[in-house]
């Protein structure tokens, strides 16, 4: 998969739709005053391993940015003792340049011009990595899975073969959707074993919606070409730490739920155990999407 295709796949996933500058930027920003020397900028960049420093006035308003290339110019001209103000790019120049050149960093300012952060390419990369933290893929074929996941999104919107709206008070009718799914899969002539795996996983996911997401969500499936894809979605409050949630025995469920035989921290581990591909997209305060793929030829 090419880089462009990956970017397209990620865009398709809507993974980064909730990204804004403030969620990507680093806020521990090193800045210089216009009267600081170029030599100070050089030292700062070397010590902190950064390739550009924003210049701010006494009120922390952004007035410019000094980059490695400017330092090299100043070095060549013997102007290291000059103030950074004399060599830095003005904000106007920066803005114009941002449009023309591929800069490695962008200052983030508030409406009043105050510098609140910086976004370097590494920040973008870390933000993507952080986001992947909440895309849990349990097998080695991560890109393939995400690729198929993105392609499936549209299928689910338009033509899921099985649709069940989860509307559950407590655990009252929890499992009704999965029972419906099982009957549907039986009518499609799948083997007993793949139906059992898909039903168990759908059931665990449905129970999770009832326990953790106020019993509101959807259970949808596509069953074609010997393959079953089940997606269970809810509106949140999301899984704060998916790595923990994937651990056997870890749970945030209440005692009342445990007394009913669930919340023992086995739901997601069970789903991982019985599915062939698994993608979980969630995060604190976000909707949760659990997509499971079951391949007939594994049976």
């Amino acid at each position, binding site marked *: 998969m090419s880089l462009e295709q990956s970017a397209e796949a990620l865009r398709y996933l809507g993974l980064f739709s909730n990204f804004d500058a403030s969620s990507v930027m680093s806020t521990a920003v090193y800045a210089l005053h216009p009267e600081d020397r170029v030599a100070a900028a050089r030292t700062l960049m070397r010590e902190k391993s950064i390739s550009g420093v924003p210049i701010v006035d006494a009120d922390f308003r952004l007035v410019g940015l000094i980059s490695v290339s400017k330092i090299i110019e100043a070095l060549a001209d013997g102007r290291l003792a000059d103030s950074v103000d004399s060599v830095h790019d003005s904000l106007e120049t920066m803005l114009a340049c941002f449009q023309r050149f591929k800069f490695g960093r962008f200052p983030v300012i508030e409406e009043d011009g105050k510098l609140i952060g910086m976004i370097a390419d590494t920040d973008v990369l870390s933000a993507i990595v952080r986001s992947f933290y909440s895309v849990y893929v349990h097998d080695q074929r991560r890109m393939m899975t995400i690729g198929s996941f993105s392609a499936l999104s549209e299928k689910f919107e338009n033509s899921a073969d099985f649709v069940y709206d989860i509307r559950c008070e407590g655990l009252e009718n929890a*499992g009704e959707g999965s029972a419906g799914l099982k009957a549907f899969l039986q009518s499609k002539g799948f083997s007993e074993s793949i139906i059992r795996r898909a039903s168990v996983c759908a059931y*665990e996911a449905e129970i999770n919606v009832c326990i953790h997401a106020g019993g509101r969500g959807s259970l949808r499936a596509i069953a074609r070409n010997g393959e079953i894809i089940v997606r269970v979605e809810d509106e949140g409050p999301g899984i704060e730490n998916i790595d923990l949630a994937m651990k056997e025995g870890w749970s945030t469920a209440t005692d009342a739920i445990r007394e009913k035989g669930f919340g023992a921290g086995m739901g997601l581990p069970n789903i991982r155990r019985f599915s062939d591909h698994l993608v979980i997209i969630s995060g604190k305060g976000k909707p949760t999407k659990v997509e499971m793929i079951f391949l007939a030829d594994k049976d």
Partner: protein
Amino acid sequence: MKLSEVLEITGATCVAGERLDSVEVTHAFASDLMSDVLAMSGPGTLLITGLTTPQIIRTAQMLDLPAILVVRGKVVPQDVVDLARATGIVVLATRDIMYVTSGKLYARGLSG
């Protein structure tokens, strides 16, 4: 082991289902944690549990378990009985605790 034998060995009563001599169980699994049941048991298993929620029926349904034996003298609510009948899952009930029930069945050859 036929369910009619399970009934006889454990002194249980049948709450839902009929023709117990025609239903066979090959193993038993005793737990009140449904996710453990989902993780560790398979078709043909008798589920021994102290829970009486609708989810015991759903769990059995997902796994193709033919029967559930409710222990500790719990009364199975009518909606659970109805769900068992609708899904064709046999429900038995005994006053014995889970350990005693399991021991009796194990001693007579029903393995885990």
